[in-house]
């Protein structure tokens, strides 16, 4: 996908949000509450539109491709994002530390840490470290589920 396309897609996304949000401001009980949001939304709409026009105008002659770095694997990134979403979703079901152990192990394995001993060692050590630092030393609250 070209950089131009990314910019246009993002700008369109912002414009759509801007339009819907602007319409929503008419449902506010007090007109005073809508002043500031409307100013920011109008700016957002106009600036995003300007960016779309500028992007199309400037890159009519040259197409700037997002440099494909051979060292970057986009499929890995995408699936990693989904694995992260799954992790966040199961935290409140399994408990933070259990979910973290599963997440760290599975993600590192997927990203290429194939040495099983190293994998489990890092996962266990990290969860232990997190437990000691967050729970015992700092006393931070963590989500509980059916496990810790």
């Amino acid at each position, binding site marked *: 996908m070209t*950089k131009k396309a*990314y*910019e246009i897609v*993002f*700008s369109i996304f*912002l414009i759509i*949000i*801007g339009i819907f*949000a602007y319409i929503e401001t008419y449902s*506010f*009980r*007090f007109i*005073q*509450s809508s*002043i*500031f*949001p409307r*100013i*920011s*939304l109008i*700016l*957002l709409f106009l*600036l995003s539109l*300007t*960016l779309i026009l*500028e992007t199309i105008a400037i890159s009519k002659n040259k197409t700037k491709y*997002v440099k494909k*770095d051979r*060292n*970057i*694997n*986009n499929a*890995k*990134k995408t699936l*990693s*994002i989904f694995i*992260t979403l799954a*992790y*966040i979703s199961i*935290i*409140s079901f399994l408990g*933070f530390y259990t979910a*973290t152990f599963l*997440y*760290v192990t599975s*993600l*590192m394995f997927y*990203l*290429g*840490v194939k040495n099983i001993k190293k994998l489990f060692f*890092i996962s266990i050590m*990290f969860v232990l470290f*997190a437990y000691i630092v*967050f729970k015992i030393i*700092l*006393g*931070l*609250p*963590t*989500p509980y589920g059916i496990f810790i």
Partner: protein
Amino acid sequence: MFIGIIDGIINVFNIYTIFFILIGTIIGIIIGAIPGLGSCVGIALLLPVTFFMDPATGLCMLGAIYGGTVYGGSISAILLCTPGTSASVATSWDGYPMTEKGLGGEALGIATFSSYLGGTFGSLCLLLIAPPLAAFAIKFGPPERFMLAIFGLSVIISVSSKSLLKGLIAGSFGLFLSSIGLDPITGNLRFTFNILYLYEGIPLVPALVGLFSVSQAFDIIGQEKKQTALGNIQKKIKGSVIPTLEDFKKIKNTIIHSSVIGTIIGIIPGAGTSIGAFVGYSEAKRISKNPEDFGKGSIEGVAGAEAANNAVVGGSLVPLLTLGIPGNAASAVFLGGLLIHGLIPGPDLFTKHATITYTLMISLLVANFAMLIFGIVWAKTFAKVANVTSNILAPLIIVFSSIGSYSIRGNIFDIFIMFIFSLLGYFMKKTDFPRAPILLALILGPIAERELIRTIVIFGGNIFGIFIRPIFVVLILLTILSLTYPLFIQKSKIGNIKQKH
């Protein structure tokens, strides 16, 4: 002021605070040494953790992380020619050639001492300049506070991106996001769609952590680093890292010049550690007796860049603590740290909360000294850490960020907010949209709106009355300048290129 300094010293020198300053320094150096992370990630990652400490200790730790990350970048810049942070690019120009000549140890030592001296100078200037400047801020009324918020936002917009248009879009979007939740004046609910969770608006810490830390973790996933054999690093670092007396004589003028430059650049809102480093490097070359050696392994080059970039740290906190204007993206994130402890930048920080503020300022001096010791003793160890692969690093950052996001309010939805903002931040990074304006708009948006409404109420009958207030007019002019200055620079660059051809 003197009483404040004494209070600060007493507060800093207790085991609890010193412990967290040391921890913050070590973590900062490690994060700085790992390419791809940087000060914003370091501060954002540990910010939620400081919520559970007393404010003074928490801010001391964040300050130590800030300084540590700026110095840490020099380690990988010198040994691997991969600057850990943008502030260390200039360091690599002479640091890496020194490593190739087998003088890696000497380069590390020069960088360490220069960072210490520059950082200490910047911190001392913070201590001397900030209090009188904060006293001046008492004269600010609602119009000035409104304009200050807009100026602060304009500064970050103009420096955070190569494209002013993208910066403005990010700022506008951030202002819209900041209006979600309860209207600060009327109590009207805005854009909540009956979702109870959104009644208090977008929570700052999860948004901040998502935008800077987790998005960065997603960015480094899949980047297969060329593993530098650790054995090679060991061979490259020969000899002592403590500079000789002769080295000190060569670089003392460079360090003095660059420390002053770095501090001034830090104070000017909008300039940051990388600009400080580049200008410090250029100035070092200009005053050097051997400018032809620059780029080939000159110790003055390393010293100039490092003294300047660490001096920026203290300087950048001057406008932040006194006026609430972040000097750069890292201090914008630091502002989040102040706010979660209920501290509002301005005169109150130096009156009502003077003890906390002076403790922070004194702690920077302690953190700089800790950075010196750790740098001398463990620079080679930190270099090994820079080789940690993204396969291990990314999941750890995400987990850390998740617990940090959850811990403030104990609400699982905060982690989802972190995730949403991480996707936003990741996509913005890919499309060269700056993220700092969104963060700053989330912070300054409610302030700007509240002061705007107050201004309208106070001056309602004669709104033009605000234009005879000199500070307000100056702030308008500064805002216009900060937004138009990048355009002038861009036009003059294009003009120069056209002239050359």
